[in-house]
């Protein structure tokens, strides 16, 4: 029985659902705050200490709002897609070792990197469905853009994710994270940089936030959503961002592992994990502030002409290094 309670605690509270949700909200706050500060503004300030509860308040507010299903929308898909997308991303997130182990202990298996990448794609596809189902021209265009973009960027993202896999000699995230005595960012910095760029595109952030281009497609795929469903769409996006950042942490920054000073290692591991996560989010937000949004055709050509060849090159380079150079050093 003790084991079961422990299991339930892990899934629901820490490092499971509750922790991940609060982490997401927290990251959302960090993101907004950093963006505001870079733009010489204050950002959220009055909801909770320094506005830390703002994302939570926004979420609650959306939950209480009227729920409208527009005429002409494909009602089932319209209603289901946001929730399913949300659960898939959270599910994917729970595979990542946070306090030294994945949410469900010992659930990691040999090929889970591929599985969670696939889950990310499925989640994006569901987001596409949700936009498509809303039968609004802007929603449809926004959704189509999501589809075009993630189809393009999935390939380099995956290729780049393979670099750490080769370095660690494993396709299991836990193993990749655990094998980084020296974080892979030092061993393969080019892959790290490219991965961040590809991730920026995959997560639809500037300069690749085409599906969210307000001046072109209003609210993109979210245009027709309101109330609870919008809350979940927002949350899905935020969890996706956390997920992407977490992936960087696991693959390049040595995962949750770091020095343990005293007490439970789980505590320190979680702390390191969160700190690294924040670092990645700050970098990504910094990039967001630097650039103007590209056009969809520019984004696609940037992918096919630049990122894809570069990521193939990066993979080749990594394999070459793993095969010939590093064995000599280590």
């Amino acid at each position, binding site marked *: 029985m003790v084991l079961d309670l422990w299991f339930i605690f892990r899934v629901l509270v820490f490092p499971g659902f509750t922790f991940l949700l609060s982490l997401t909200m927290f990251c959302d706050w960090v993101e*907004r705050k950093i963006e*505001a500060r870079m*733009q*010489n*503004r*204050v*950002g*959220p*300030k*009055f*909801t909770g200490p320094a*506005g830390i509860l*703002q994302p939570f*308040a*926004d979420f609650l*507010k959306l939950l209480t*709002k*009227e*729920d*409208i299903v527009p005429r002409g929308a494909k009602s089932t898909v319209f209603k289901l897609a946001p929730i399913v997308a949300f659960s898939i991303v959270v599910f994917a997130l729970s595979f990542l070792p946070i306090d030294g182990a994945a949410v469900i202990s010992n659930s990691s298996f040999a090929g889970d990197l591929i599985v969670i990448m696939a889950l990310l794609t499925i989640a994006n596809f569901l987001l596409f469905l949700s936009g498509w189902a809303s039968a609004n021209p*802007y929603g449809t265009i926004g959704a189509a853009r999501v589809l075009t973009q993630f189809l393009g960027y999935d390939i380099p993202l995956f290729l780049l994710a393979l670099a750490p896999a080769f370095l660690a000699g494993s396709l299991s995230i836990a193993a990749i994270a655990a094998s980084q005595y020296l974080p892979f960012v030092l061993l393969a910095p080019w892959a790290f940089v490219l991965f961040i760029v590809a991730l920026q595109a995959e997560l639809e952030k500037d300069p690749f936030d085409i599906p969210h281009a*307000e001046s072109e497609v*209003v*609210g993109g795929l*979210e*245009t*027709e*959503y*309101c*109330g609870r469903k*919008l809350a979940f769409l927002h949350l899905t996006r935020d969890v996706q961002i956390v997920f992407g950042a977490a992936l960087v942490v696991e693959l390049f920054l040595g995962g949750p592992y770091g020095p343990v000073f005293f007490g439970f290692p789980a505590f320190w591991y979680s702390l390191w994990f969160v700190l690294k996560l924040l670092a990645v989010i700050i970098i990504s937000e910094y990039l967001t502030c630097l650039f103007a949004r590209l056009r969809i055709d520019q984004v696609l050509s940037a992918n096919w002409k630049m990122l894809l060849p570069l990521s193939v090159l990066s993979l080749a380079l990594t394999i070459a290094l793993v095969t010939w150079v590093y064995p000599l050093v280590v």
Partner: protein
Amino acid sequence: MHFNSGACNGCDIEVVALLTPRYDVERFGIKLEPSPRHADVLLTTGAVTRQCTERLKRIYEQMPEPKFVVAIGACACSGGVFKGNYNVMDGVDKVIPVNAYIPGCPPKPEAIIDGVVKLLNSLKEAKTNGGK
């Protein structure tokens, strides 16, 4: 959420200025939303021209409950200098219910913040008095 129903841009730029560093309404968790479906408060400017009437109503209908409307500037309050012209409806409240009025031509951004704060306070009062 902001809708211009035939304004001179004077109030509109002040509304947009609210987002910028000097006033930064994100401090209060206020953001400009592109779609009426995401909005809680509709900031309207302008004297409501006849062509805009239909669209203004539709946007109001698209907003999910609970929703509030703020009329910004003399024109939105009651037509202002354009009152009585052949193509204007003389104020937003002739078309949709309005919850708060902010006079001025245009009101200072601070005055708009003040208006929204007054609206929020009135909602709180309504709640404590056994309202919704």
